[in-house]
């Protein structure tokens, strides 16, 4: 591979990793800034997915000129895949537990259709 191409790839990789790191930083800041559990869940799970993917892409680009075996890129792919699969589950469980144990700060909530729905069903049960 030519010298110039490697330099370009290096810079692309650096940009990817930097953007990913910046997103993770935003996630950290969000954890501190947001007031209640549910909005914190967003930053705990989300910018990080894209951040992690960007970092993985950056590492992948960096690896291509250095070594040719598929192992490293394959492993990166696995990491990304399982993260995308498991992060929503973790977020969902935390949210669900918080909701069931009524640890939701309703002050930041403008409209809660879930609570309305549960309320409506309870009323219907009572009338039966």
């Amino acid at each position: 591979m030519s010298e110039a191409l490697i330099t370009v790839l290096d810079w692309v990789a650096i940009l990817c990793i930097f953007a990913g790191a910046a997103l993770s930083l935003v996630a950290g800041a969000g954890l501190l800034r947001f007031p209640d559990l549910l909005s914190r869940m967003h930053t705990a799970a989300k910018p990080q997915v894209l951040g992690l993917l960007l970092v993985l892409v950056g590492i992948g680009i960096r690896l291509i000129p250095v070594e040719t075996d598929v192992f490293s890129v394959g492993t990166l792919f696995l990491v990304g895949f399982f993260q995308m699969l498991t992060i929503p589950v973790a977020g969902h469980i935390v949210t669900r537990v918080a909701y069931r144990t009524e640890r939701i700060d309703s002050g930041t909530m403008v409209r809660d259709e879930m609570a309305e729905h549960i309320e409506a069903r309870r009323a219907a049960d009572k009338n039966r």
Partner: protein
Amino acid sequence: MSDPRQKRPLGLTALRRRLGKVQLPVALGMTLVWMLLFKGFQPRWESLGLLVLGFLVSVLIMLLFPLPPITPGLRFRPLHMIRLAAYVFREMALASIQVTIMTFRPEPVRNSMVAVPMRTESDLMMVFTAIATSIIPGTVIAEAERTERILYVHVLGADTEEAMEEGRRGVRKLEEGFVMALGTREDIAALRAGGVEKLGRGEKT
């Protein structure tokens, strides 16, 4: 459904019954993961052994921990899949920027819990939609109501009816994307038929 603990056939019969439960696509998927983990895609002789070993391990796992089959399965449509992937990644990038802005705004963020009725009857489509919704910043699944087919989505920064409607539309677009890319013909028919909101504005019992 009979209780499996009551009458359990022994020996060969049991083994044969278990073997019948092995799902080939799932086993192949596990073999693929195995190959990725063990550097299996290099052109060398050991790779062949790895492939066989990986497949045997996958079958063994499915013998020990049998799972019910995924019905009705998937229909893969590559073109729609590419379109869906492009949509998801674009949304991820855009929504990341939005969430970043929201994070650093001085006033406190206000949110809403939005109910999104699903248009298809397929559990699989519901799971896919839920995962994709959770991956895109700004929306997180709080509860999946399986019997009534409603996803409850927590939308960050949705403080008006329009913003809530926007969040709902996003989830419905994702559902449409997955049904078009992976759904069966019945799913697509259900999607086309149902533009109908099962849940109105929260006042339906």
